[in-house]
């Protein structure tokens, strides 16, 4: 029955999904496991890119574009700058054998993952099978923009304030020198 429904476009979509999903999980693990933060940051770019592919599969074109531009283009670059600024001090090799804390962490996160998967499989599977039909404009910049400036105007404005505050905070944190430096004639 499943085979009957397979057509060429669908097969292509499956192939893209599988590749993107594998890239997503492996790059996510790479971010977590690399000892060198520089490699972690690079792996995060791959992670974000594969996410953008999945977004495209979900008809969210604008979000996918924003994902690549904002995350891969801005946030990760910022990470890279900081890593470069810190130089070797940023390296954080693994401490060694699994401590109690690490074991507990693995158990807890594994439990969360398994539980949610079980919930999806057992309880919600049926309800998730039928998806809504879409018109062409779904996920387009035009529709997102309309939504932002109509139903979600407040969230939009608050977002701008959050960004402003973060920018100011970043400037203050980045420019404030420790007191002993100031006493030696550093910047005010």
């Amino acid at each position, binding site marked *: 029955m499943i085979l009957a429904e397979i057509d060429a476009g669908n097969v292509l979509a499956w192939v893209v999904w599988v590749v993107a999903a594998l890239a997503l999980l492996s790059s996510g693990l790479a971010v977590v496991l690399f000892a060198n933060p520089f490699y972690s940051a690079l792996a995060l770019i791959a992670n974000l890119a594969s996410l953008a592919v999945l977004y495209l599969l979900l008809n969210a074109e604008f979000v996918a574009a924003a994902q690549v531009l904002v995350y891969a283009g801005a946030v990760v670059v910022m990470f890279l700058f900081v890593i470069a600024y810190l130089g070797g001090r940023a390296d954080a090799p693994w401490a060694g054998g699994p401590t109690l804390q690490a074991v507990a962490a693995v158990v807890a996160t594994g439990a969360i993952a398994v539980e949610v998967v079980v919930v999806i499989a057992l309880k919600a599977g049926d309800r*998730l099978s039928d998806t809504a039909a879409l018109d062409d404009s779904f996920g387009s910049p035009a529709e997102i923009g309309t939504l932002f400036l109509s139903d979600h105007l407040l969230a939009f404005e608050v977002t701008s304030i959050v960004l402003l505050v973060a920018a100011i905070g970043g400037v203050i944190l980045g420019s404030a020198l420790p007191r002993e430096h100031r006493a030696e004639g550093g910047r005010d």
Partner: protein
Amino acid sequence: MLGPGIAAYLVLSVVLFATGALGVLVRRSPLIVLLALEIMLNAGNLALIAFSRQLGDGDGQIFALTVMVVAAAEAVVGLGLIVAVSRKRVDLDVDRLTALRG
């Protein structure tokens, strides 16, 4: 809808979330903790987008975009803190930053 159903995306999302959480929990470098946090946020975003597609409602995408903004803001502040801490000539190790010990 082409490709696998929403459930597959959700499973992917939760596994990614668990990966990110693992990173936050086991790594001691604040930089990598921040990167892992980004992964967790993106796992959430993936679930939001998937539900948005499922329901045919653009609100989920709005939510995801807002989360992105918050993530960017969080990254700015987090990185600023890391730079400030490193200026204090303190080791970049979250286990050494214990000034809040009770």
